[in-house]
């Protein structure tokens, strides 16, 4: 399965990558902001995206809204420090399928990934 990690922090992408590898996913690409992700989507064709909210150039919420204009089905998981209820609702309305608040344990992240893929029938 092709998975795109969208986060401006390389440290965070590495942590997520190691969780994904433990789950057996190895086809992983990385983007450092929403715009970079949009540029990579056509060629990489991700089947799951993990997206941060707070990023330079294009934030995660704008990415989700833009991505959902042309793709309603690819699962998106927001992985962010934005923990307020209002933010979670805003992200879900924009089209994310699940939400993980940083800091997270590897177990929690893998649980949310598995849950999202099952829910989306991937």
């Amino acid at each position, binding site marked *: 399965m092709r998975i795109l990690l969208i986060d401006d922090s*390389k440290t965070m992408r590495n942590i997520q990558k190691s969780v994904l590898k433990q789950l057996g996913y190895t086809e992983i690409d990385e983007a450092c902001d929403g715009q970079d992700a949009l540029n990579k989507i056509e060629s990489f064709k991700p089947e799951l995206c993990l997206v941060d909210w707070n990023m330079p150039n294009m934030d995660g919420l704008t990415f989700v809204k833009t991505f959902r204009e042309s793709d309603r089905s690819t699962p998106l998981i927001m992985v962010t*420090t934005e923990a307020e209820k209002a933010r979670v609702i805003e992200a879900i309305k924009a089209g994310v399928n699940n939400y993980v608040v940083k800091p997270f344990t590897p177990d929690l992240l893998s649980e949310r990934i598995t849950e999202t893929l099952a829910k989306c029938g991937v």
Partner: protein
Amino acid sequence: MDSSYITPFMTSIQNVFTTMLHLPVEIGEPSIKTNNTATNDVSGIIGVSGEMAGTIVLSMPNDTAISIVSLFTGMQFEANSEDFVDAVGELVNMISGNAKAEFQRKSVSISCPTVVIGDNHRVSTPSGTACVVIPCNTDCGEIVLEVAIREVRAEAIEPQSNAA
């Protein structure tokens, strides 16, 4: 400064360090900072805006920061490397974001992190805002979290974008 603005940061640094680094944090007695000189060599800085405004600084001695980043990333980086800077930025980002969630009734945004490294650098806090220094003792050494935030009157708030 209202102590209810400080408590979330104490809880948050403990939560972030325990969850991501498996490093317990013992919080010391907070005090008011009286100068603009950085407490330590490495400062991770986040700006706060919206109904609260100010800065959050995670300040660490060089060697302590290297040990903490090593626990966080599982790798050893030099203090002048991009990876080190990125990791320090992500730590202060998580601490600030986690604390911000406790201000549920307020609309508050945080900036992307900035990291400054070097002896005797200066981090200016907004004028008229008290800076509270929260000492944090860890097995990697003592670090401090400096919180300089205040409430902003509704009429003084500029319209915000959705980016947080």
